[in-house]
């Protein structure tokens, strides 16, 4: 049974379809793993064991009756806790939403239910997805299964750790500046931020509306492809969702090829100042890419120097507005100060008590960036830098089919190392942020371990908007090559999880 949890989702898909294993067996195996390592890793904020098994049972019955089901039917999944679910609390990692049960499901959740994936529970995140380590979750951080004293990345550390600790084969994450890709890199898993608009944001508790995107978290590129195919698509509830389909990611992943691809090495993100182990693995990966028949070209994106600045103006600005709705009136926490306070005082006291420090910091910063007198210099300027970044990408993609960089400057750092230094924390996202600003898709694929600490390193591919399939194609190809060289999978390198 414990072998079931080590299978990839795509392998489970096959076994389930052939009825060589039941969804109940698969789901129970994962629930057992959750019981075993769940506390140590702290991936989940809420576990929905009963309803997951009920879905699994339903899937098995229908399969037995010969009903044609969705590809992923019966494959368990975990959902980041910033997506609304009617049958489980949705907290966004914040105290201000503690215990809140939404009266509606996110579109992505509805899709998962319709396709009958057993939802194991809601995963941990930095509060309101603000952060890159889960240290800002109001419910305590998640741990990196590779080393429980290290961060699993953020904001989606719950999703990345749940998959890398085999508590679930799949997870849903959200990525605003790297919150899927950075956790992927530091936990040795695969994470994708699709093209902006590819997946409906309806039901995603908004952080920065023009940057947020929902995406798949998995241990394998093909798994992620199945998941993106399952959750992508136009939604009339989301006015920014793409009108058409981006095609089949599964087919692209199965095609898996680097031959003849022009791969653009971004000058500004080629590893200067990055951890040596990261640079070494990256250089090796570039060689493998060339050996596989791709051509590396140099691309120059000078505006990327301002990407982090633009991001840390746009995000807080939009977030300050998006988070205004948390005011004690219609949902969530209410704190009433002594005496007969006015509603203004109740709102201010509630938000003071309910929001954590990083959230408050960004709200204040965002309010400043939008305030009259500052708008042009900050938010206005940042939206213009965005144009420059898009232009740099356009120029780069004229010369290359995909772009490449290390996903992150370092491997997983220890808890506490960066939490008091916002600027240092913000630099984790230096390679991932440009894609969000431009709305283009990006993937992080594990490429090995850093020599100095034996911790996972990820490579990031970027593709033009709408060309997500290219990421799956080159990602699967590189993954195949590496697994061939290693003779095993990335996660097989991970040390045994130490649980008491």
């Amino acid at each position, binding site marked *: 049974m414990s072998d079931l949890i080590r299978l990839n989702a795509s392998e489970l898909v096959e076994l389930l379809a052939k009825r060589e294993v039941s969804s109940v067996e698969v789901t129970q195996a994962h629930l057992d793993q959750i019981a075993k390592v769940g506390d140590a890793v702290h991936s989940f904020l809420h576990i929905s064991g009963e309803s997951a098994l009920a879905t699994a049972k339903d899937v098995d019955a229908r399969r037995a009756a010969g009903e044609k089901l969705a590809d992923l039917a019966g494959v368990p999944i975990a959902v980041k806790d*910033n*997506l*609304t679910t009617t049958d489980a609390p*949705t907290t*966004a990692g914040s105290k201000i*939403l503690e215990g*809140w049960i*939404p*009266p*509606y499901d*996110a579109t992505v959740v509805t899709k998962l239910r319709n396709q009958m994936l057993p939802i194991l529970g809601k995963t941990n995140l930095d509060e309101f997805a603000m952060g890159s380590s889960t240290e800002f979750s109001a419910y305590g951080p998640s741990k990196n299964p590779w080393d429980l004293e290290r961060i699993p990345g953020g904001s989606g550390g719950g999703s990345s750790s749940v998959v890398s600790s085999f508590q679930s084969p799949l997870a849903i994450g959200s990525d605003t500046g790297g919150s899927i890709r950075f956790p992927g890199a530091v936990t040795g898993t695969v994470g994708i931020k699709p093209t902006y608009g590819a997946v409906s*944001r*309806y*039901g*995603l*508790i*908004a952080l*920065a*509306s*023009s940057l947020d995107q929902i995406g798949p978290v998995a241990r394998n590129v093909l798994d992620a492809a199945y998941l993106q195919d399952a959750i992508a698509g136009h939604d*009339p*509830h*989301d*006015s*920014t969702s793409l009108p058409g389909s981006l095609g089949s990611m599964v087919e692209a992943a199965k095609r898996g090829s680097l031959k003849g691809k022009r791969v653009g090495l971004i000058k500004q993100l080629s590893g200067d100042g990055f951890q040596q182990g990261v640079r070494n693995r990256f250089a090796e990966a570039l060689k493998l890419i060339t050996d596989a028949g791709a051509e590396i070209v140099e691309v120059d994106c000078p505006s990327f120097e301002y990407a982090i600045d633009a991001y840390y103006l746009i995000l807080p*600005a*939009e977030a*300050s*507005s998006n988070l*205004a*709705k*948390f*005011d004690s*009136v*219609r*949902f969530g926490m209410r704190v009433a100060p002594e005496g007969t306070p006015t*509603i*203004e005082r109740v*709102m201010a006291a509630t938000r003071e008590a309910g929001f954590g420090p990083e959230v408050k910091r960004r709200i204040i910063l965002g*309010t400043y960036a*939008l*305030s*009259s007198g500052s*708008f042009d210099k900050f*938010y206005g300027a940042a939206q213009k830098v965005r144009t420059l970044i898009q232009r740099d990408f356009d120029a780069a993609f004229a010369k290359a089919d995909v772009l490449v960089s290390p996903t992150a400057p370092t491997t997983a750092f220890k808890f506490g190392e960066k939490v008091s230094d916002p600027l240092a924390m913000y630099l984790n996202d230096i390679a991932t942020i440009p894609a969000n600003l431009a709305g283009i898709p990006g993937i992080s694929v594990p490429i090995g371990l850093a020599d100095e600490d034996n911790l996972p390193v990820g490579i990031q591919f970027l593709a033009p908007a709408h060309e997500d399939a290219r990421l799956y194609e080159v990602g699967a190809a590189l993954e195949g090559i590496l697994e061939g060289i290693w003779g095993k999978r990335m996660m097989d390198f991970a040390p045994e999880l130490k649980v008491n």
Partner: protein
Amino acid sequence: MAKANLMDYEKALELFEVVIGLEVHVELNTNTKMFCGCRNDFGDEPNTNVCPICLGLPGSLPAVNGKAIESSISIGLALGCQIAPTGRFSRKNYFYPDLAKNFQTSQYDEPIAFEGAIDVEVPSGNKYTVLIERAHMEEDAGKLTHIGGATGRIQGAEYSLVDYNRAGVPLVEIVTKPVYGAGAEAPELAAAYVRLIREIVKALGVSDARMERGNVRCDANVSLRPHGQEKLGTRTETKNVNSLRSIERAVRYEIQRQAHILAGGGTIIQETRHWHEDKGATSSGRPKSDADDYRYFPEPDLVPVKPSTELIERLRAALPENPADRRKRLAGEWGFAEMEFRDVVNAGLLDQIEETVANGAKPQAARKWYAGELSRIANAEDKDVSELNITPKQVAELATLVESGKINDRIAREVLSAVLTGEGSPEQIVKDRGLEVVSDDGALIAAIDEALKKQPDVLEKIREGKVQAAGAVIGAVMQAMKGQADAARVRELVLERAASL
């Protein structure tokens, strides 16, 4: 509330030039709200026409009502505006319990329509061209009820209750440029402008335009400057003006109030003021402070609105006759004297009379009923004519009955009262009560002979040629006929009979 000192109106105008600006909010009558599919309906159970979007629940996203876009464009076209090739929604950020997201999705620097103009006629007959700065789309807020205070208003309330049924209802805000040169007619101009907006949106069919329901709301801006001064004075914005009459009174009041302050060497505080109909005065609201930094930025959850030329031209072609043209046409068709027509317009009776004529009445008859008896009754009951319990069709029926001679004016007024109390249609009432004028000469002659017999001295006088004396007999006959006779015919017959007896 202390009443402010007011300067005499004429004196105020001698000293100062009046500049006004009007912001009118029009509530659209679409089926659904601006950004979600909830019903756009008045008066339902609280919080039953709500969804995650208009409740501002986490994770919700807006979706634009396409019909509201068309309605907004139509309004812009009717106001002579240019339609923006690219319009955008923006967030107006502020905290208030009736604002579900604590920001209003509105339009800021890219409104859907801008730079228009309409001609407004005031009761005196003077015409003013009011320039339109912009018309933009936004959503309404929820409804607050304040509990525990003495007056049901905010001051002194213990707590408040919020109903979000109205949150998200589509609004179009029409903003004028400052209006100069109206002088003493500024109050009338303000009211006439709003009346015209109501006419326009009603004719377009995009709003029910009922001010008493809040379908049309007006904020009036007033500022004064000494004659000849270039720099504009500080303006105040008066809210809570719920009727055309209030608009006129409020503008007039502000002119007088501000004049008094300025003449005394004081300064006007830039603030929002509230109109109190019962006191006939404005009171100070919140001063405009830097707390009003709305931090506008483009709404990231909504994409730009780029109306195609085809759409704009289709909507332009579907525009109803503009009010000025309509009035010219009707004035020509009806043949009223200028003063008569203007009275009808000023009294807001154009629609009713038009419909009454369409139902077969003669224009003058329709005018007589509406501007006469019906207006009198409405005033006495402190109502608007449109609120009386009679339809234009019924008025036409009544007029036709009189025209055909079936009833006379006096009986008609009796019938009218009966219609207003809900007894039925005019024809029905005449039939049921047997009010039809006796047209049978035989019956009349019998009554006449009877009356003449009873008043031989009158008969003598008539035969002597003193025809005025016939009045006594006519009166007696009318009484005998219970008024159901044509007095003119009776008179004819009286004289005939007197001659032949």
